[in-house]
């Protein structure tokens, strides 16, 4: 269970406004990425975001480019999860792969507003707030495994190690 404050946005928040193309092909540290998060959507976000905050948005969050920084910059900024009506597919994969929980709940999106205090429970699949408690679609077990490992790199690293050990035993 962890606590955070809501930043709410609309439909079709695309990867260009989450992390502009002018920075996409520069290699940056996570801290540098965080300073550009949502730069072309809400210039106040990067300055005001606190660890644990939650982004709430409408449909098709993360549409557009496959740039992974659009997920990584939010994680680096301390965002604990994005709650949306729906996600663009590459964004969904990228977020899981870097360990940023992406949760679908139309009810939460309808009810929550910027500044609301929320508590998130990934295990139980719940978002709690003064406006009510909302369920989100539980993430599949395989995906939870990747998030629990801290992202696909750590997850794959462990699997490659296991295979190496198996190969040695054979």
């Amino acid at each position: 269970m962890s606590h955070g404050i809501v930043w709410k946005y609309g439909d079709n928040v695309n990867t260009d406004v989450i992390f502009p193309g002018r920075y996409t092909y520069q290699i940056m540290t996570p801290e540098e990425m965080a300073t550009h998060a949502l730069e072309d959507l809400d210039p106040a976000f990067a300055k005001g975001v606190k660890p644990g905050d939650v982004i709430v948005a409408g449909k098709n969050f993360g549409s557009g480019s496959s740039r992974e920084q659009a997920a990584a910059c939010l994680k680096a900024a301390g965002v604990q999860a994005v709650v949306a009506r729906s996600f663009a597919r590459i964004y969904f994969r990228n977020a899981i792969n870097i360990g940023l929980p992406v949760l679908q709940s139309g009810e939460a999106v309808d009810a929550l507003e910027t500044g609301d205090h929320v508590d998130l429970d990934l295990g139980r699949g719940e978002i709690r707030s003064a406006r009510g408690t909302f369920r989100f679609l539980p993430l599949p077990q395989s995906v939870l495994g990747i998030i629990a490992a801290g992202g696909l790199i750590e997850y794959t690293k462990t699997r490659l190690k296991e295979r190496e050990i198996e190969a040695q035993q054979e």
Partner: protein
Amino acid sequence: MGKTLTEKVLGRKAGKDVVAGEVVSVSPDYVLSHDNSAAIIKEFQKLGVRKVKAPGKIVIVLDHIVPAADEKYAQNHKSIREFVAAQGIPNFFDINAGICHQVLPEQGFALPGLVIVGSDSHTPSYGALGAFATGIGRTETACTWATDEIWLRVPETMRIDLAGRLRPGVFAKDLSLKLIGDHGAEMANYKAVEFAGPAAPDFSVGARLTLANMSAEMGAKNGYFAPDDKALKWLEGRARTPFVPAVSDPDASYESVLPFDLDGLEPQVACPHAVDNVKPVAAVAGKPVDQVLIGTCTNGRLEDLEAAAAILKGRQVHPSVRVLVIPASWQVYREALGSGALAALVEAGCVILNSGCGPCLGAHEGLMAAGEVTLSTSNRNFRGRMGHRDSEIYLASPATAAATAVTGQITDPREFS
């Protein structure tokens, strides 16, 4: 129950019968990356393995910022060249090849029945030739380099049944914009889009590449045409390997079927700042522009340059407009030199740039200042994509772009026919 092309191709790879909704683990035929290989290499190095699993499957095309615009990009390119040499990756295309989504079809990588994943959102382009092709992220690409494996959910399929024929001055780009405008930018989120119906075979391979490319803007996982005689003929002399095409069965199960009549279609324009903010060109005609971009993975092929040249030949670019032309590949560049299209564009006052992505993604070669407007043949018009956050991008066909270049304001290309 019959199967869709996507179910067949992924099932063949997975070694079992699969239906939409299932998750399969497959070994892809090719894994594409471009300038972002520099970042992928950094992720790969975290995995603790020394060598990529299948170097022959990796295809790297430098196209996003070519030639390097500054020392950071130069360093990226250098690290990619060193990695390619160290890993023995045979399929590397340096700055003189073109945009990956043109290079892979031209060089015979994009083939019917293949599974291609790429760390670029417009990877679905290869469905134009009947491949299953989809975009993935950088971390996932690094892991696929190491494991030669990726999980994919078999998507449901939306079929678009095309009937009638495109009228003069109306192109595949107009069709894609109209579909996205009518049904929204998430019309096919997570789905496969099959372009079918009696008019589908009429579309050239170039037009198919435009439509499959734009399926990414519908949110699609993959978009495709059934590989027919036209596609197979185009592949003669190009295909790098033998391949076994797949097509959807007549009794395949579709999530939805969308009929579309081409006869009544007019030229379309996507207005700022969303690809689904689409209007007929007549509704925005007269809007002054500062810049016109003709090119990109969506519309930089020979037929696109020739459509533009047909309007600009013997005319002059309007003095208040800067016109940038980028052939999608060096092969297209050479063909357009041969056909006279490039000469006509140069004579008209266009600036011809090196084959690559150019300013489309906002990194170099013609970015906009605050308040400026570009009409572009590319695929995205999000706020700030091609420069300042207060600049504007309109999307249209190469013919509309050329007509706009002549008049300095958004113009219906049919006025020049």
